[in-house]
């Protein structure tokens, strides 16, 4: 039986080309893991019943050695916020429990065109509102490293499907850390691309000026490969960039790195609330980069302490607007099915956008967004990249923060600022504490994913294996 949990996309592609196994074998192995582990982990909401048939069709159709399809035969799980034609899409909300999209999201179309097999739809915090997966209307997803703990959110199921051997990659969205946090909690690589690098068309909108479309993989190479597929201008998404998409995976070995590479450490991210064991791992990562020749510089993001407050004004505002279309008239069920967190955000958003409050809250937050973006711009004039922690805590226990919305919001303290600035960030496994995964993130300026991946790759190579 294929050990999917240990297999990377690159290894699978090589094996398929060498005919060590078929696409059908690979998909069957993934489905077998879904059957075995999903009852306890609750990572998958909907399995694609046609996956095996599609796999067989790929096996019949063309030899992967001849094909130029980068993800030929690779089984992928999609966060259930990606519209899939003919396959139920719920955003993990009871409002969309019966919704079957009549079209594919652009990112889904691109993955399919690259030969990927869509295995199923992953559980998440409903409407992507959350940092733990506990806001799902279909039960929380469990962390495979400790099933009493959360895997992080909102792309909880995506991270877990990958880390438990149900797929070779998973897609996610990162609006305030929702890829990077679960990646750090599940020992996977998570990319939050630059806002506008990957099309949002067909992806159920949370915060339309924040949503970044990314994915989870086992290593940096696989992540870079997948971004080469999903990134690019889309006529159907006016916020996408027209800049060319490099073959990120082919550019990982940059001979100029890390000579002359400067890495910034954010002064304001050293704060008493972070677990000292996480600080130790962050320090170790800094040392690793120093050892490969990078120059470490302390930088300041003076307004970053206001990022969460800014985020939790702007996001509920955009959410209240986007969820206005869920009326139960053209699709889905009526609004009385919204869960508690969705209601909180819709209410906050409606309040801050209403007459008499708009200037004091929403407009004020837009101005602070300017200040935070400027902080990042200035930082990237001084350094090539930032190295930051991802989470102030280890993967926390289910129920620990669920009854304290504000405590849950503060989980995003190191990840939300990047969404305000629109910059790309890569979460990479950095170590472990008592068998629980810990990640760190690299951040670069907008549309600099090429450098981001090169640095991430350097770190991954120099870091060595992590025992969990």
């Amino acid at each position: 039986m294929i050990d999917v949990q240990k297999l990377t996309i690159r290894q699978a592609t090589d094996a398929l080309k060498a005919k060590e196994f078929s696409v059908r074998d690979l998909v069957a192995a993934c489905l077998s893991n879904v059957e075995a582990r999903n009852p306890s982990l609750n990572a998958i909401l909907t399995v694609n019943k046609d996956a095996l048939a599609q796999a067989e069709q790929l096996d019949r159709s063309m030899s992967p050695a001849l094909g130029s399809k980068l993800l030929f035969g690779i089984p992928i799980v999609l966060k259930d916020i990606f519209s899939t034609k003919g396959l139920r899409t719920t955003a993990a909300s009871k409002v969309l429990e019966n919704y079957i999209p009549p079209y594919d999201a652009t990112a889904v179309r691109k993955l399919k065109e690259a030969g990927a097999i869509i295995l199923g739809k992953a559980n998440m915090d409903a409407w992507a509102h959350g940092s733990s997966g506990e806001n799902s209307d279909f039960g929380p997803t469990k962390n495979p490293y400790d099933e009493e703990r959360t895997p992080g959110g909102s792309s909880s199921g995506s991270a877990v499907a990958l880390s438990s051997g149900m797929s070779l990659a998973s897609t996610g969205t990162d609006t305030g850390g929702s890829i990077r946090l679960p990646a750090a909690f599940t020992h996977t690589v998570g990319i939050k691309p630059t806002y506008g690098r990957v099309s949002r068309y067909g992806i159920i909108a949370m915060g339309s000026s924040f949503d970044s479309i990314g994915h989870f993989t086992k290593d940096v190479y696989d992540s870079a490969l997948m971004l080469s597929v999903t990134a690019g201008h889309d006529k159907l998404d006016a916020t996408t960039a027209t800049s060319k998409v490099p073959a990120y995976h082919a550019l990982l070995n940059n001979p100029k790195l890390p000579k002359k590479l400067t890495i910034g450490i954010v002064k304001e991210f050293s704060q008493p609330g972070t677990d000292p064991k996480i600080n130790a791992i962050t320090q170790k990562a800094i040392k690793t980069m120093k050892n490969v020749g990078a120059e470490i510089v302390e930088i300041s993001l003076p307004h970053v302490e206001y990022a969460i407050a800014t985020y939790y004004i702007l996001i509920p505002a955009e959410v209240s607007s986007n969820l206005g279309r869920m009326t139960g008239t053209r699709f889905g069920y009526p609004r009385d099915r919204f869960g508690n967190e969705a209601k909180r955000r819709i209410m906050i958003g409606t309040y801050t956008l209403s007459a008499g409050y708009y200037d004091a809250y929403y407009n004020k937050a837009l101005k602070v967004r300017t200040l935070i973006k400027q902080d990042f711009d200035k930082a990237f004039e001084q350094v090539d990249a930032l190295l930051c922690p991802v989470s102030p805590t280890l993967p926390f226990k289910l129920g620990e923060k669920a009854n304290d919305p504000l405590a849950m919001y503060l989980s995003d303290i190191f990840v939300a600022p990047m969404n305000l600035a629109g910059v790309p960030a890569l979460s990479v496994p950095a170590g472990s504490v008592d068998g629980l995964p810990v990640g760190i993130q690299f951040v670069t300026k907008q549309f600099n994913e090429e450098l981001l991946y090169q640095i991430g790759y350097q770190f991954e190579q120099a870091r060595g294996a992590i025992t969990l």
Partner: protein
Amino acid sequence: MSNTPTRLTKDKVLNVAKLANLTLKNTEIEKLTGELSLILSYVGKLNELDTSDVTPTNQITGLINVTREDTVREETVLPPKDALANAPHKKGDFFEVEAVFTND
């Protein structure tokens, strides 16, 4: 926005719920009022900053006035059958909705 903690009234919460087209159960109003007050008090932190000389940022792409030709994009057109496939109530090729206008 003041520096003192925000304390929403029940009436305000009900008013916002109406604007948001949300029906709140009696059992949730008090809890929600408390939670929203807490969250609004926290985000009031922004008042510490002087932003009188700062322009708001609506989006961070740097793109301006992205337009397209006013022509039909076939890839976004759904035949009526597909467009109505998820409709809870339909009549012929139409979505059936609650009446907007009444007779009085």
